[in-house]
């Protein structure tokens, strides 16, 4: 019982981090048709900026979270305005371009912050553990679950209940018609890219409470969030959330039961979903 609860909580907290990343990729893909492979690198940059603020320079943790998000967001903004704009509708080139950014951002991060793994860190008020019914659980992980869920609800509300969300969804379905209705889709694209990148950096610092910071994150977390998207389906917040929680839990239970094989369960889940529902469990269209 104790094992069940703890593993579920571990899975939820990690899964929600993956959700934040997958949601960003999915949102950017939906609106702009760009598969941003450097999203994991943005996560890593956010995490490093946060680490540098909170641990190296001793600033407030929440300020570090904000700055991590902003740093990633600004990088995203530069990518979108300087590079992707010129590759409109050239999908293959865009994918490869984002791959080039992985190399650049990862190597620059190693240059600036070093290649060593940095242990997880958190805010002073979040250190320590809960003690409920004989169970002990770190407060930091609980806070990750809360923040993740709040953001999930916020994103869902934004995409499904607001005018902005309606524009975004319309852009996903038919760009030309949306533009002909007098909507400045360019502005929407830029804002969505910034938002997605911001969330990635934000998730980087939040996630650093669980997994710390290291340069290999840029590929590792990207792969997991891609598996999340294959399972959940591109284009909807719910899909990314479901995929994230599933993969988080599979990963947590796998690590607890068969530490050597944990990774294979996530891939196995992906292959099964591909065989049964190639568009993902909650994919759009």
């Amino acid at each position, binding site marked *: 019982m104790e094992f069940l609860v703890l593993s579920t909580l571990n899975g939820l907290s990690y899964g929600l981090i993956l959700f934040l990343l997958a949601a960003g990729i999915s949102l950017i893909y939906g609106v702009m048709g760009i598969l941003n492979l450097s999203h994991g690198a943005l996560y890593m940059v956010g995490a490093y900026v946060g680490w540098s603020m909170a641990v190296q320079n001793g600033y407030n943790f929440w300020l570090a979270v904000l700055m991590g998000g902003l740093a990633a967001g600004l990088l995203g903004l530069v990518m979108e305005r300087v590079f992707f704009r010129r590759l409109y509708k050239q999908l293959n080139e865009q994918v490869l371009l984002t791959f*080039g950014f992985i*190399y650049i951002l990862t190597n*620059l991060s190693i*240059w600036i912050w070093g290649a060593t793994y940095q242990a997880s860190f958190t805010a002073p008020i979040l250190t320590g553990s809960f003690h409920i019914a004989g169970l002990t659980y770190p407060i930091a992980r609980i806070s990750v679950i809360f923040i993740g869920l709040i953001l999930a609800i916020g994103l869902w509300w934004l995409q499904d209940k607001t005018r902005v969300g309606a524009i975004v969804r319309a852009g996903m379905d038919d760009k030309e018609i949306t533009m002909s209705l007098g909507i400045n889709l360019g502005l929407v694209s830029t804002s969505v890219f910034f938002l997605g990148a911001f969330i990635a950096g934000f998730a980087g610092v939040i996630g650093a409470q669980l997994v710390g910071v290291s340069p290999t994150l840029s590929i590792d977390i990207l792969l997991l969030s*891609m598996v999340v998207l294959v399972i959940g389906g591109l284009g909807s917040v719910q899909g990314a959330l479901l995929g994230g929680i599933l993969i988080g839990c599979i990963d947590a239970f796998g690590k607890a039961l068969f530490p050597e094989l944990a990774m294979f369960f996530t*891939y196995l889940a*992906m292959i099964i979903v591909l065989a049964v529902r190639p568009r993902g469990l909650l994919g759009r269209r």
Partner: protein
Amino acid sequence: METTALKSMTQLRQGQLLRLASYAAIIVILILLPPFLPSYVQSLMTKILIFAIFAMSLDLIMGYTGVISLGHAAYFGVGGYTVGILLIHYDISMLWISAPVGILMAVLFAAIFGLIALRVTGFYFIFVTMALGQLLFSIAFKWEWLSTVGVEAIVGIPRPAVGLPWFSWSPTSFYYFVLLAFVLCFFLLNRLVHSPFGYALQGIRDSEPRMRVLGYNTWLYKYIAFVIAGAFAGVGGVLFAYHNSIVVPTHLSITTSALVMFMVILGGTGTLYGPVIGAAVLIPVEFYAGLITPERWPLILGGAFVLSIMYVRAGIGVYLFRLWNKVVYRYGSIKG
């Protein structure tokens, strides 16, 4: 009038001469020159040819079929790992056994992974191929059976035994062996892309719905192309294991997949000479960057990646080809 005709005749002959001269130059550089070069240059040229095979195999699916895989190194690595496993667990280093088995394993993996990945198209396909490649990478990293004791790699792979008592490998003879394999692969792939099958692949690249309407089973065509590409990647992997004498998990991973994809793009997709030129440019750059600033190499590579995609999208190979045509036109074509 007669003088004009005469003039154009000589110019035509000049054009032919120029073309012949280019073939001669290629022959000199690839066949006659290598024995006189230092052995590290020979080794570099061997590596270029191996990666040229690998890059051409990727271009078969990427440039000719329009299916982008970010996990193509999986089949390259499987080829290499098979050679290594045969050596360390079964004590087989015979060329006639280890090379075919290596290629066969690459085909097998491509056949299985193709079934999984071709369930989906477009971006999902990129995801899935990349994830499957990383799966093999992590297996190779974690499973001790797949490495020499004490390291996370298979080390000490010798050049293959050929069964001839009087024969022993030198860098030069191995270079010629790889050159032979390269010419063979180039010839086969050239035949393939200019066959009805190859034209059907290009049709799928340009418009899959149209080909489907014409009655082609496009899925099957893509699947077969994917497996064939896996086989040629396996050839590259086997040769690279012999050449490099060590296989590491990275040979299976996204790092290698991306590098070879960059070769294809840099040289020019949808051509066979493009990937070769891409390999011929990138391998020396990688070599010298590794000597000068190994820790900044990814940064250089990434920057080159971005710049070439922004500015030389058609590929260096294609530019060179156009330039060459211009030269031939100026000095050798019929102009009044």
